[in-house]
């Protein structure tokens, strides 16, 4: 019998090459004749470019070309809003916007040349925050005005809901922008060939979306471009479609007709944006005395910076996703996405969910206190359940939220710890919790959320998987490998997953919306089963028996009826080829989930499954220094069947730490639109010392739409951290922080204000 592979913790398939330092990231690629590029960025938040003099830079020995906005295609690119050119054309809209690029024989020469470029700017008034952008007579960032997107959603009767409430609570929450902080700054190598085709090796979460964007920005046919995914050193959303440096690198390669490498420095990477979307959220909720939510009213102002990118999609998630986590009837959301002259923001792990989770879970705990209820009970009372149809038409095929809540409250010993808090002493402890949901998949990029897997079975019985879903460290390739190995009855070491390549891989959307496990996993399952039945058919012919009697285990096809009837897999695979009309085994399977796009009212079941999570933690607050530390934490993720528990735990721990960073340690400092802490010494992400043991647990619901019961993990786990910490801080010191991050200064100020109440 083949031991089951799915559900077993196993090292990632890329782990071996990575621990040897042999995985090749884009910045490691070196090609014959390769040149190096560097970018010049705008020092102004808003300015007209009057003139650019590149002559001195061009004259520097080693410089091959200097390009500016005058040289790039006029066609503009963008996700929905076509707002950008390859380099700024005539106008700059944020500090850090790329205005010129140098290609030279070495990075050092390119860097020196940057300093020789003379640009004359006419500085223009800039709007640097939401309030400025919305004020009377504000300078428009784009001609269309500063409100780039507006969403209105209403269901049920919100006013009646509030009228029926015993308590109503309203509060404004603000959330700040987080840097994705992947350890690999963006890097790209691009090269044209003798036929004029362009090949781009880059760090991306989606090769096909990258290709589409390149075609648009470079204004050339899609098929004249080939994008190959290099090993990705982390993405967290920023490398889906919004980063700009791969576009610039590709353009430069077409200019010099030689390979060009563009490695961003860390400062470059930070300045170019792709931080998460900061928001101001006004939340009003009504509840009856027993804790039932009767109405929810949300107003959101979100800042996308200079270019919209995916921000409108992010905001839509903030505006409505959390409504589906609870049994609600009366909900209303009004959200506006606002341009400012600051770096573009956009997709980030959790995709708008973190912002609303902070508001909602802070609110739930506050209202639980108002009702004299335990917040866990309040969540349980309102939690959506398996089989429910949510207020926005989401069909909840599996929901492990109640189990997640139970797990984390037991693990932290919630009730006992909560009772222990005395709110005295210098170092005070408090406990907090939060509950969240996320999608697994999302039919949003057009009416397809499918995934195709091509499976080749070689003549030695080993297999190659072709897919363009991207593994950026989260374990997609390992998941596919496990499903494939299990279905085919072969060892995992006999499975190879090819890197995504737009010329050779089937069309896929890539790693976003936690869609890969559920959609590509299903495609993999289909492809593997198809290959399996082809193998068994061939074996049946060869062995002279019924295919139905045959199985594959440990790389051998054998009959369940007659122990003498068996054949090693390679024998069958060769037989599949070497016969009249034979061929190598090559199967393809596409899985497109039975979901719908939202209608105009934002209604409809957009995802094949929904994931849930809960977190409970304890903090210690130093009342003299304002320092907050998470001292113990438990997170439970309902990811359906955990195909690789090791990976799920890794995702949970990583996401939870990223959330701690967002809440307590990381803060983008801007002055006049300029980033003041554009380095990792001053933009401080959590170190190993700054976080405790990250305990995680898994609730394995059986998702009917998932491959072998699985759904997405990883994004869900980033959602509960911030409010759980804020709630714990409140529990510890009786101070509610509603604007992130929770800095020592805010703690001290709040404590001081509390000690000196107005007379």
């Amino acid at each position, binding site marked *: 019998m083949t031991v089951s592979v799915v559900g077993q913790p196993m090292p990632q398939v890329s782990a071996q090459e*990575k621990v040897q*330092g*042999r995985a090749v990231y884009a910045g490691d690629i070196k090609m014959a004749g390769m040149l190096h590029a560097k970018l010049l960025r705008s020092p102004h938040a808003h300015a007209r470019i009057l003139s650019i003099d590149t002559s001195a830079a061009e004259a520097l020995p080693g410089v091959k070309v200097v390009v500016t906005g005058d040289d790039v295609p006029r066609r503009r690119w963008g996700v929905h809003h076509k707002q950008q050119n390859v380099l700024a054309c005539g106008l700059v809209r944020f500090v850090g916007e790329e205005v010129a690029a140098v290609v030279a024989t070495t990075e050092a020469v390119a860097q020196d040349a940057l300093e020789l470029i003379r640009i004359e700017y006419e500085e223009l008034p800039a709007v640097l925050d939401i309030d400025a952008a919305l004020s009377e007579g504000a300078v428009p960032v784009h001609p269309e005005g500063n409100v780039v997107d507006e969403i209105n959603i209403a269901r049920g009767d919100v006013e009646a809901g509030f009228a029926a409430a015993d308590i109503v609570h309203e509060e404004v929450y603000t959330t700040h922008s987080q840097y994705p902080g992947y*350890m690999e700054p963006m890097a790209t190598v691009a090269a044209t060939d003798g036929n004029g085709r362009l090949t781009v090796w880059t760090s991306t979460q989606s090769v096909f979306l990258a290709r589409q964007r390149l075609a648009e920005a470079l204004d050339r046919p899609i098929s004249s471009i080939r994008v190959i995914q290099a090993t990705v050193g982390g993405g967290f959303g920023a490398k889906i479609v919004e980063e700009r440096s791969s576009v610039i690198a590709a353009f430069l390669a077409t200019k010099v007709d030689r390979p060009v490498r563009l490695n961003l420095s860390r400062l470059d990477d930070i300045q170019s944006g792709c931080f998460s979307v900061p928001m101001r959220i006004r939340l009003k909720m009504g509840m009856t005395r027993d804790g039932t939510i009767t109405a929810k009213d949300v107003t959101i102002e979100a800042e996308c910076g200079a270019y919209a990118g995916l921000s409108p999609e992010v905001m839509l998630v903030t505006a409505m996703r959390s409504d589906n986590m609870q049994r609600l009837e009366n909900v209303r959301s009004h959200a506006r996405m606002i341009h400012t002259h600051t770096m573009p923001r956009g997709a980030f792990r959790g995709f708008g969910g973190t912002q609303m989770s902070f508001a909602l879970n802070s609110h739930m705990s506050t209202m639980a206190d108002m009702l004299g209820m335990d917040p866990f009970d309040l969540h349980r009372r309102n939690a959506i359940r398996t089989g429910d149809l949510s207020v926005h038409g989401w069909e909840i095929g599996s929901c492990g939220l109640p189990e997640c809540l139970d797990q984390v409250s037991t693990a932290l010993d919630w009730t006992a710890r909560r009772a222990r808090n005395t709110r005295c002493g210098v170092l005070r402890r408090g406990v907090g919790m939060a509950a969240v949901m996320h999608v697994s998949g999302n039919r949003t990029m057009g009416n397809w959320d499918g995934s195709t897997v091509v499976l080749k079975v070689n003549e030695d019985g080993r297999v190659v998987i072709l897919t363009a879903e991207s593994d950026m*460290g989260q374990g997609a390739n390992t998941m596919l490998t496990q499903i494939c190995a299990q279905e085919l009855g072969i060892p995992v070491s006999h499975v190879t997953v090819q890197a995504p390549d737009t010329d050779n891989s089937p069309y896929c959307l890539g790693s976003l919306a936690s869609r890969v496990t559920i959609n590509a996993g299903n495609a993999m399952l289909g492809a593997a089963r198809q290959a399996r039945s082809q193998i068994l058919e061939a074996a049946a012919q060869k062995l002279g028996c019924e295919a139905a009697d045959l199985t594959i285990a440990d790389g051998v096809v054998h009959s369940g009826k007659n122990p003498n009837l068996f054949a090693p897999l390679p024998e069958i695979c060769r037989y599949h080829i070497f016969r009249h009309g034979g061929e190598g085994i090559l199967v393809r399977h596409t899985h497109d989930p039975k979901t719908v796009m939202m209608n105009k009212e934002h209604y409809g079941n957009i995802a094949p499954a929904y994931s849930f999570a809960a977190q409970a933690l304890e903090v210690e607050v130093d009342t003299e220094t304002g320092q907050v530390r998470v001292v113990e934490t438990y997170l439970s993720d309902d990811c359906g069947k955990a195909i690789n528990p090791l990976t799920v735990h890794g995702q949970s721990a*990583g996401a939870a730490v990223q959330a701690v960073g967002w809440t307590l340690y990381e803060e983008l400092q801007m002055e006049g639109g300029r980033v003041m802490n554009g380095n990792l010494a001053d933009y401080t*992400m959590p170190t*190993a010392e700054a976080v405790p043991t990250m305990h995680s647990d898994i609730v394995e619901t059986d998702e009917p739409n998932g491959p072998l019961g699985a759904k997405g993990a990883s994004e869900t786990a980033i959602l509960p951290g911030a409010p759980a910490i804020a709630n714990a801080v409140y529990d510890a010191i009786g101070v509610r922080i509603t604007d992130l991050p929770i800095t020592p200064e805010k703690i001290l100020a709040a404590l001081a204000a509390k000690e000196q109440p107005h007379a």
Partner: protein
Amino acid sequence: MSGHKLSLVVNGERVEADVPSNRLLSEFLRDDLALTGTKRGCETGVCGACSVLVDGDVVKSCLSLAVQMNGREITTVEGLGRVGALHPLQQQFMEKGGLQCGYCTPGFLMAAVDLLKRNPNPDDAEIREGLSGNLCRCTGYQGIVDAIRSTAEAGHGA
């Protein structure tokens, strides 16, 4: 300006090279010796992705000049272990989920070698302190700490 003759040992092999004085050790390893396992993540001494061993001590190669390395012995991740003869730490990083994207991994491995050399039996707090010069954005450090602890427990600390 001046080129410098360097003679050093890298991963057990003698290397003679001519380098300009302003070449960083990280650049020398990656660009001149094609040892791209050593990464750059910040080039300001914070992230630790560029960590290598110099005479057995872990250092950040983005904070060193190549010319400082004359006569020294350098070990990069490529010198730690190979398929079939992986270093116990490499094995444990794989098995305990000590990596995801892998970009930080070479640096963490080198820091872990130094840590276990000085303290073959560290507790979790000591492990975390020993990793304070390295950043990882993927793992939340849990898999890394677990990997180092289990390496030590298996007696491979020294």
